[in-house]
């Protein structure tokens, strides 16, 4: 294999991965500043004045230099492998997400299915973290997490299928193309309900407030990641944020018209990032505005409210498409 071939095979994923990591790192700063302003304070300020621009780098360096503590009684293999198992699916999601017309690492026919399937693998890594720590708090948290994430994956998938039904294809590019005239979120009733359902189920499968019983800092301290320190902790944090942003990107593609926006086609990726970050900010805003729901209430909500609602929504979408006489996949 020639050098040129090697470059063209390895290059794009390398660029994508690094780009995503840098973006995610600065999204953590954005979250902190946004949260601070909501709370009448300033947030990171001193490191890289005046807006704390160097704060993410300082945090990364700090975590690199920390001691890596492995509890004596922990299951070493599982404990050490868990952050990687948690991280890999988060990055893998980005392989199938298109950033602009034709710019995608893997233009899969079943793009959406791939993204959803891979993002569901997170829960394995999470449980490995909790189990490998050999710690009651971590175990309790991991159990709650498995419960919650699995319960919310089902309505999540059903709601994500609504744009698929309206488009007639699972290819993410095709879904965005189908939003040329009208974004799916603007569809009367159907679109808005699906969008809201998407947001709520994203919050739940991401363990974000109001569904963050998994970490519940005030009860279980750090939950499943309580025994992790140093770079492993950094990897877990990175994985969580990457996953969250990945779902925000997915939301943009499915409901907000992807890279469509006024201006030349070259601005596509800019619009995409802008919309994804807006969705991300929306999730952060929700985080800082709500209290946490208790775990049995979360599960009850999922199975008794969201699942039937998502099913009904999907059926309604199917009925609309059938009435229109188009699509069908």
């Amino acid at each position: 294999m020639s050098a040129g071939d090697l470059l063209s095979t390895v290059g794009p994923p390398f660029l994508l991965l690094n780009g995503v990591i840098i973006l995610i790192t600065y999204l953590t700063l954005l979250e902190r500043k946004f949260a601070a302003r909501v709370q009448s304070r300033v947030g990171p300020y001193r490191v890289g004045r005046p807006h704390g621009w160097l704060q993410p780098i300082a945090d990364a360096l700090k975590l690199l230099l920390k001691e890596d503590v492995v509890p004596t009684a922990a299951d070493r293999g599982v404990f050490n492998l868990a952050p990687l198992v948690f991280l890999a699916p988060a990055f893998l999601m980005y392989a199938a997400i298109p950033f602009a017309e034709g710019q995608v690492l893997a233009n899969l026919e079943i793009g959406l299915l791939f993204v959803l399937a891979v993002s569901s693998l997170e829960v394995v890594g999470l449980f490995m973290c909790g189990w490998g720590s050999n710690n009651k708090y971590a175990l309790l948290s991991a159990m709650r997490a498995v419960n919650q994430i699995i319960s919310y994956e089902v309505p999540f998938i059903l709601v994500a299928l609504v744009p698929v039904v309206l488009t007639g294809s699972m290819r993410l590019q095709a879904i965005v193309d189908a939003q040329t005239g009208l974004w799916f979120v603007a569809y009367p009733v159907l679109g808005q309900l699906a969008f809201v359902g998407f947001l709520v189920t994203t919050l739940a499968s991401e363990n974000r407030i109001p569904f963050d019983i998994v970490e519940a800092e005030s009860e279980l301290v750090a939950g499943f990641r309580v025994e992790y320190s140093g770079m492993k902790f950094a990897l877990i944090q990175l994985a969580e944020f990457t996953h969250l942003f990945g779902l925000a990107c997915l939301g943009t593609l499915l409901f907000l018209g992807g890279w469509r926006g006024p201006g030349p086609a070259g601005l596509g990726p800019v619009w995409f990032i802008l919309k994804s970050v807006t969705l991300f900010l929306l999730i952060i805003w929700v985080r800082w505005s709500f209290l946490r729901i208790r775990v049995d209430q979360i599960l009850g909500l999922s199975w008794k409210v969201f699942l039937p609602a998502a099913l009904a929504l999907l059926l309604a979408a199917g009925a609309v498409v059938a009435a229109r006489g188009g699509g069908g996949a």
Partner: protein
Amino acid sequence: MPDPAARTVVEYGYGGNERLVMNMGPQHPSAHGVFRMILTLEGETIVAVDPVIGYLHRCHEKLGETLTYVQYPTIASKTDYVAAMTAELTYVRAAEQLGQIEVPRRAQYLRVLCAELQRVASHLLWLGTWCMDMGGALGGGATMFLYCFREREMILDLFEALTGARLLYGFHQIGGTRYDLPAGWAETCRETVAHIERRIEEYEAVLEGNTVFLVRTQGVGVISPELAQEVGVSGPLLRGSGIAHDIRRAEPYSAYEDFAFDVPVETAGDCHARYRVRMQEFRQAIRIVRQVLDGLPEGPISSRPGVKSVGQVKLPKGEAYARVEGPRGEVGIYLVSDGTTKPYRMKWRGASFSNLAVAGHILPGHKVADAVAILGSIDPVFGEVDR
């Protein structure tokens, strides 16, 4: 009403109870202080709770015997450090009761003013920390926490202009108060109080009707009136369970009979009822503050000269019990004097001590997440519990 069946142990099919003994505290982000609970869990449900206190024991009652009457009021604030004014007030009232010492009218009004402002500040801290516990230190709860503290800081600024200190004031002395109002303080106080009243409306808008909040607080941690009286709780816990007992009404002290205010009472007995009681207490406290500022008489602020020597106050032999309606409930001091400058015995009745005792009764049957909400609605301060 709590379901008795919820407290019985359920035998699982696979050979015995899958019980987990979990330790919460004493260092814990939401233990409200140094408090240790040894919880026995079945899954997520608490089956038994073993509370352990004493981590903050600092021998206040012994200190009361070794320090004279003029020295101790500054130390008294350190029991209930969140509501230092009412803690000091209790001690000086006990000494004044023993020594039959008169307190000038202006001093009484100033005491009421500070006690009510302190009530607002203490409840702001309660609201902030309670929402933080229910919402996570870095989650939505922190927003309420920072908002409440932003307002509490304004009251602390008022106290700082008045006494010079922000948390532990040393404002009271036997015979009256140590400090008088500086120029312009009354105006600032009125503005602050009006501002806080508006902000409380905002906070209620965030919480009231918020489904998540209601689901987490209604029906949770119900204290029946019988249990409340049996254990001896006081303050918002008692009034949240339907018993209308407020010391400011039952045995008015320090000119409280001059002021018109309501005593909010709720009957549900759950966390939500106690929340409503405290939110109403905000408004009533602000109402009293305005009345005090409007009717503040001129005059001296102390009936005895200011402290000039350590043995200045000698109380006759006898004993007295003085009680004060603090933000957490009945704070009391039982003082026994043998005629010298130091008490023979001083006993604190801490409001949080009795309030916390109810936790062992109501926690079983709830989930772990409820434990946090219930503890927050009890609002213990461990300086009072452990003394």
